[in-house]
């Protein structure tokens, strides 16, 4: 477990500048929106948009982790130690989720501040739903990045989440991306509640993609190219 935490910490450190830029964006533009607008719809729109950015950010970060480490050859020094490849993947995912959690908390804090005491609980429900979405997107992206270039992995992730959403529209929360997307887009409407069932299914799907990623990554040649 310590090895996973070390790898996660290292991942967070390596991605600190894009992460801090995104956090600065949330705090800066969130502050501007809160203080300059008296219309609550503006704040809701801001929260929805940063939620979508977070989704894209998590997918990109997860998809590029392995590729960057491999291309820079830093991966070799890490995997030459007594750790399993699945531990390495867990570390990357934990790091990405740590960043996603900080980002979500920042969104929650901005939302709570702008609500001025009203409906604060729903803001934090949105944060939980966002975290579930980020976990699903991050794990799917990580899975595809084990055998695809990051750009292709992100595209494949978008396609997969789209297919899951299409299935979810027909079947329900078992395919959670539709319910999660609806929840994000519907935030602010009176009577809004978090899709708890979809959140739970998102965690289940993340586990499935995590296991698949570990299985594929275990069989991959990591140091490529003939000398």
């Amino acid at each position, binding site marked *: 477990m310590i090895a996973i935490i070390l790898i996660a910490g290292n991942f967070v*450190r390596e991605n600190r500048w894009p992460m801090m830029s995104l956090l600065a964006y949330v705090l800066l533009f969130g502050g501007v929106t809160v203080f300059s607008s008296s219309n609550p719809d503006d704040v809701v729109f801001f929260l929805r948009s940063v939620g979508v950015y977070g989704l894209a950010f998590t997918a990109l970060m997860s998809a590029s982790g392995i590729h960057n480490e491999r291309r820079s*050859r830093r991966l*070799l*020094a*890490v*995997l030459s130690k007594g750790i399993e490849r699945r531990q390495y993947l867990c570390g990357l995912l934990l790091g990405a989720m740590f960043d996603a959690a900080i980002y979500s908390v920042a969104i929650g804090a901005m939302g709570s501040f702008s609500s001025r005491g009203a409906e604060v609980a729903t803001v934090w429900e949105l944060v939980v739903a966002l975290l579930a979405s980020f976990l699903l997107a991050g794990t799917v992206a990580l899975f595809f990045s084990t055998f695809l270039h990051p750009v292709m992995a992100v595209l494949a992730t978008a396609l997969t989440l789209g297919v899951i959403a299409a299935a979810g529209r027909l079947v329900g929360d078992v395919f959670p991306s539709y319910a999660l997307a609806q929840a994000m887009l519907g935030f602010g409407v009176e009577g809004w509640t978090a899709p708890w069932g979809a959140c739970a299914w998102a965690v289940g799907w993340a586990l499935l993609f995590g296991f698949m990623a570990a299985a594929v990554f275990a*069989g991959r040649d990591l140091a*490529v*190219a003939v*000398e």
Partner: protein
Amino acid sequence: MAAVLQYDHVTKRYSGARRQSVVALDDFSLHIERGEIFGFLGPNGAGKTTAIHLAMGFMRASSGGGTMLGNSFGHAPTRRRVGFLAENVALYHRQAAKLVRFYGALNGLRDPQLARAVRDVMETLELRDVADRNVGKFSRGMLQRVGLAQALVNEPELLILDEPTSALDPLGRVAVRELLQRARAAGKTIFLSSHLLSEIELVCDRIGILHRGHLARVGKTSDLLESSDQCELVVRGIPTGAFPQATGEDGTTQLVVPRSAQRETIERVWSLGGEIVRVNPLKRSLEDIFVELTGKSTVDGRRSMAGEQGRIPSSEPREETGSHAPNRQRRGDS
């Protein structure tokens, strides 16, 4: 003696463009014994790094397999007992001491043992003065030292080093050579891949030469270098022209003769009233052997002897224990 690192008929194919595959290793077998320094030589593209990466579990063999410290290649807990330095070392941009600490912790070391190990290895590699500096600002030589530090921090039983001294200055090379010799004295095993033939010649107990995925030759360094069929006689007091092939210097005459003709030549010198000053077996340099086996031109443009008598069937490496026909020789100690 138990093999610390063993390859059994390993073949590794890379799939290339247009479904063409490149064979990096072909039926490669080798065993490294405990407590030895093994030099792994070969030209670029011979398959050295592939062999190392297979042992470390970075890739899977197409066929065959092997063991490292008694466990199959890729066994993660075994790697805790191994130190690895990759060619063109790439490390995270962090403070040197923190970076070494990070790698030590990944290998399961914990304080206070970890703190002590980091301090010791930084001291050994003369990195204490730069321990707080960011590795991203290091020269290549300094980076290589940090790479060595991360390989050594867990006090490994087996060290696998891919070009460990390529970026070091002469003093750095001497330091690494001494470090390797100390490690051997402490009972550690070292698998050393390098292009620096002089380094290999100085520190290695055994040498393997890889060429086009085959182990072309393997044997004790001393046997490889001394396996000459010729010797040099230094004589004086013989008439000029007695031996057409002789060369003269400072009143002495040098004769290079086959070992089989050594006795006969000495007797002839005596019969001519001459005196034997010394008899030296001729040694070849590692470069000569390398060039002979790999078929490359030397720096001065000489053509190699490959394809002639020096080439051997590649699937059956010659284990060097005695003498065989030389190509070019240099004088060895008598």
